[in-house]
C-alpha cells in the first residue's frame, strides 16, 4: 500500500525520532498546509498556528499510523481543515448557516469585500478578499479541488459530501468568484 501513499514510509521513521524523516515530512507538507490555512482563514499568523498544530498531531499519530486506510495527505488535510473550522467558528462573523448550508446564495454582494482591501492594487489581494467572503463550504471546495489539487473523490470525502454535491459547490464558488472579481474590474464577466 505504501507505493500508493508516498508519505507512509516516513511515519515509522518519524515515530523513532529520525530527524531526516522529520525534516523531509516538514519540507514536503508545510507549504501545502500553510497554503490551505491561508486560503481558508485569510490570516497568515492563524495559518501558521494551524500548520504547527497539525504537525504536532502528525508527531503523535506517527507511531499509530496504519497503511491501507486513508492516504496520509488526506488525513493531514482533514486535521488541518478541522483546525481551520475551529478558528472560523471562534470569529464574531461566523454563522452556522455559513458553515453547513449547502444552499448558500449563489451570488454574493461584491460590496461585501472590505473597503480597505479594495484599495490594494494587487490582484492577489483582491482574490484573497473574494475568497474570504465566499461561503465557507464553497471556499473549502474550491481550495481543496483547485489549489490543493485533490481529486474530486478525495475532496468530497474530506467534506463529507457526494461528488455531485462537491461539483455543485464548485460551480457556485466559481460563479461567485467570477462575479466578485468582475465587480472589482479584475475579471471580465
Amino acid at each position, binding site marked *: 500500500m505504501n507505493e500508493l501513499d508516498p508519505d507512509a514510509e516516513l511515519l515509522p521513521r518519524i515515530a523513532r525520532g529520525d530527524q531526516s524523516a522529520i525534516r523531509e515530512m516538514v519540507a514536503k507538507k508545510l*507549504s501545502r498546509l*500553510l497554503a490551505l490555512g491561508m486560503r481558508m482563514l485569510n490570516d497568515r499568523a492563524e495559518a501558521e498556528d494551524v500548520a504547527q498544530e497539525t504537525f504536532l498531531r502528525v508527531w503523535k499519530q506517527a507511531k499509530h499510523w496504519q497503511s491501507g486506510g486513508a492516504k496520509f495527505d488526506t488525513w493531514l488535510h482533514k486535521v488541518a481543515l478541522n483546525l481551520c473550522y475551529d478558528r472560523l467558528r471562534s470569529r464574531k462573523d461566523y454563522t452556522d448557516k455559513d458553515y453547513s448550508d449547502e444552499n448558500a446564495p449563489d451570488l454574493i454582494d461584491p460590496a461585501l469585500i472590505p473597503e480597505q482591501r479594495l484599495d490594494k492594487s494587487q*490582484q*492577489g489581494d483582491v482574490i484573497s478578499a473574494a475568497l474570504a467572503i465566499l461561503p465557507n463550504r464553497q471556499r473549502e471546495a474550491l481550495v481543496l479541488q483547485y489549489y490543493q489539487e485533490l481529486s474530486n473523490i478525495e475532496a468530497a470525502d474530506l467534506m463529507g459530501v457526494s461528488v455531485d454535491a*462537491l461539483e455543485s459547490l464548485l*460551480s457556485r464558488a*466559481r460563479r461567485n468568484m467570477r462575479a466578485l472579481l468582475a465587480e472589482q474590474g*479584475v*475579471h471580465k464577466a
Partner: protein
Amino acid sequence: MNIEQFIKLTDAYGAIIKHWPEIYQQQAQEVIALNLPEVNEALKQARLLDEMFSSHTLAPVERTLFDSIVASAPKADNPLVKPSFWQQWNIKSWLGVSGFIGTGLAGAVAGAFFVSIWTSGLLPDGIDGVSESSGTMAQYVDVGQEWS
C-alpha cells in the same frame, strides 16, 4: 458526454482538463475537438477565471517556522516518543548483554579446556601439585620466605 454535461463540468472544474476527474478527461477532449462555439465560450470563461486563481500566490515559508516545527518533533528524549519494550532494547543494551554473556562463555571454554588437559595427564607433575590447595599455599609461603 454531451455539450450540457461538458459545460456543467467546466463550470465545476475549470478549463484545465487534467484537473478534471480522470473518467471524464478523454470524453472532454473529444468534445473540445468538435470545436463548437458554446464549448469554446465555456472554456474561454473558465480559462480566464483559472488564470485569476493561479495568480493568487502566497509568500514562501519562513525558515523560522520550518525550524520551530522540526524542533517540535519527537526526539530520543522527547516525551512524545514512548519507546516500546523492544525499542528500549537498543544496540547499546544488546552490546552490554552480549559482552557479559561472551565473557562468561570464554571463561567456561577456558575452564573446560584446562580440565580436559588435566584429566588427560599431559600436565607436568609439579603443576599437578599446585591444584591442591595446601600445595598452593605452601609454594606461596616458600616464595615469601626467600624474599625476606
